[in-house]
């Protein structure tokens, strides 16, 4: 059975982010992680999660889906030092550039659009986290999501 469009799109996001060599990224994953058990080398950790998906009919056999994807970057540490802020902004910039390079997600989507870049936050893990929200639109025919 062929992979669904949404899986192909998500796989493409992961694959493209994994090609970023500079600045260095650690683990790129769509799975929820237990931060206490993550390897040190997994940082900067990039978590990718579909947070919302809306669908509408655009023809009898065709649907338009809009997927909202949160891409969260976690740096190992407790404080937002200047170095951490610089490192984070370099990573956010690299991710944005990589996503923009092919907005069709390897011909599986109509559009990829960076919607927001959130504030840098200190988390309880402890990590410094910043989340980019990306909207991806794609069409599919009946039943083949």
């Amino acid at each position, binding site marked *: 059975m062929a992979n669904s469009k949404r899986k192909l799109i998500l796989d493409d996001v992961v694959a493209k982010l994994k090609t970023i060599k500079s600045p260095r*990224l*650690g*683990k790129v994953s769509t799975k929820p992680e237990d931060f206490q*058990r*993550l*390897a*040190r*080398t*997994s*940082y900067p950790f990039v978590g990718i999660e579909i947070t919302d998906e809306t669908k509408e009919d655009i023809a009898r056999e065709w649907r338009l889906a809009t997927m909202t994807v949160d891409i969260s970057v976690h740096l190992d540490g407790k404080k937002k030092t200047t170095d951490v802020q610089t490192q984070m902004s370099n990573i956010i910039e690299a991710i944005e550039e990589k996503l923009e390079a092919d907005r069709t997600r390897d011909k599986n989507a109509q559009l990829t659009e960076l919607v927001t870049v959130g504030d840098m936050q200190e988390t309880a893990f402890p990590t410094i986290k910043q989340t980019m929200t990306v909207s991806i639109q794609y069409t599919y025919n009946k039943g083949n999501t």
Partner: protein
Amino acid sequence: MAYAIDEDLVAIVPDIFDHGVESFTVELTRSEGDIQRRIKADWWSISHDPTNFDKTKLIASEWKRATIYHALAYYILPRLSNFQADDTFQRQMTFYKERYHEEFSAVLAAGISYDLDGDGVYESGEVDFIKERLYR
């Protein structure tokens, strides 16, 4: 020829490259050197002049598993570990350290090959058997 490469690691720990590291060649090379040093100290130097030890006369494939276990226990897993309580990598370090010592002893017991005359053939006289278990 390297004793072990990244693909050999995957055969033992399939998810070893899921932690943001692309290659463990440096760690494997370090372990290879450590193992050659131990072979020299624990085997060769017992009955030979230590200065005459030539690591190229060993058979790389004989030491593949020992190299992998050593690299995991002493270099790779410590690099991954966050050294917090209940850290899975620390438990794995202990496990692979034991496997390494077992494997090293097993290779010695099964016969360590050393091409003494350098003719590329490992004759029966060039395979030495050591039965005692060496632990360090």
